[in-house]
């Protein structure tokens, strides 16, 4: 108890507002926001992504399987246990609670974007986004949360998947799906998910 108070006092005196933030996350916070809420267009939201997913992305940036001019050197600053510390920190930050739209709530969708999200387009072998990304895209396991993510970021990622500058997905599942999307669909999907708050 006494020790906790001392630590708290030290943290306050050092001027840190976010007591739980590990030192290695400070640099990340400058572009992703101190609580990982994202700063458009500097960095996407990290809050609400799973710790495993964040750690995996750091490693993909480090090995060049995911290419980004800014993130390549930034990811190198994280080594050893710091990767998990940072991943845990951002993954546990609050995100807005979304009331998920479940399959079957609607039988058909007049908006083709919603149809792609909730039912897919099987004639082109495109499954519904929510099958892997969870109801309303809230994320599950290694599949990142899309709900409330920045539209510009989602769009850039889908393009990166198409161009092969983003990889690391199991059996190229995401790359294959992204490759089938039109530019207009990418734009619309990015907009759609960004507005699920």
């Amino acid at each position, binding site marked *: 108890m006494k020790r906790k108070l001392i630590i708290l006092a030290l943290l306050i005196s050092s001027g840190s507002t976010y007591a739980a933030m590990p030192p290695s996350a400070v640099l990340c916070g400058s572009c992703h926001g101190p609580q990982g809420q994202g700063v458009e267009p500097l960095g996407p939201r990290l809050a609400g992504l799973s710790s495993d997913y964040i750690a995996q992305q750091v490693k993909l940036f480090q090995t060049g399987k995911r290419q980004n001019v800014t993130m390549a050197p930034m990811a190198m600053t994280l080594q050893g246990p710091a990767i998990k510390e940072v991943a845990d920190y951002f993954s546990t930050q609050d995100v807005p609670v979304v009331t998920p739209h479940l*399959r079957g709530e609607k039988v058909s969708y007049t908006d083709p974007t919603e149809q792609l999200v909730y039912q897919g387009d*099987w004639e082109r072998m495109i499954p519904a986004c*929510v099958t892997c990304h969870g109801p309303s895209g809230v994320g599950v*396991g290694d599949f990142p949360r899309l709900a409330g993510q920045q539209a510009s970021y989602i769009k850039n990622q889908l393009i990166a998947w198409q161009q092969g500058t983003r990889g690391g997905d*199991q059996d190229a599942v995401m790359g294959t799906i992204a490759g089938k999307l039109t530019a207009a669909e990418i734009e619309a999907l990015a907009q759609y998910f960004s507005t699920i708050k």
Partner: protein
Amino acid sequence: MKLTHISLLLIVASFTSKAETLPDKQAELDASAKKEGQTYLQPRPLSTIPEGEFGDKVRRGYQLFVNSQQMRDKYVGNNLNCSNCHMDAGRKANAAPLWAAYFAYPAYRKKNDKVNSYQERLQGCFTYSMNGKPPASGSEELVALSAYSYWLGMSGLMDQVGVSWPVPALSDDELLKGGKRDDFAMPAAVKAAMTLEQRAKLPGKAYPKIPEPEQAYSPERGKEVYQAHCQSCHNVDGQGYETAGVYSLPPLWGPQSFNWGAGMHRVNTAAYFIYENMPFGKSIQLTNQQAWDVAAYINSQERPQDPRFKGDITKLKQQYHQHQGYYGQSVAGQAVLGSKAYPNNPNKAQ
């Protein structure tokens, strides 16, 4: 007096056991190999389901099919949804489409010397694949699922012969029987285009048969396939992933998956399904051997008990498990499969 008591007891006992005898409603799917360049029946888009009472039943069927968990603890005893194995909500060819199944019933089954109607086949899905308790014959759930299946099939058949009017509504009784009947009402052009037998074997039915593996299938090799290609979606322990209460990435074995009586517990059926439909969205193609091996791995894990189990694994194995499967066998020195099986139709809370 005493004798009467005994004979009464015997009568009661024989009645009980008769009522408990579950027919084999999950007989092996009638699979055939996929043909190059084959075209398939294309059901109409769901947006064209008509307004009104009949259309409402069709829509309800779709909703039960993609969110079967709304029947949890009533008719469904695991975490699965019908749409987990019937891709694109039962619309996709070669993924056990409902439009093909509907016109294959009623069907005579040698095994129980009985003609099974479509609703009886659906009841089998609840008992085995959903590890639950089937809705009663004639119930609104079975009517809805039959209506959805019929609408998908008939809309496709009508479009094939250029009949563009709405799918004719049928009575509940008619819907429940299935479409493989001489007296089944349908537009004349549809009836003339194919024979009853042709409609019962529409291309794309069930899962396409693949050749036997080059080497005998092996759960051991299958584990490697699983780890390399399946576990990112189905989890390290095969239990899938849940989010917001939904397992859209479903459990493949264990207490929340299909039971030992479900068609998918057969290694061949699972291999056909996996080869054709996995990995999801078909990003890579597993080899024939990999599909068999991983099917063997998945189906050599413990799962809920075969509902026909009466206390004797060996006897049940003799009676119902003379096929490519692992029920009643010990794999890699583990306990005999079925001996530690999970309960049938458990409550979710348990």
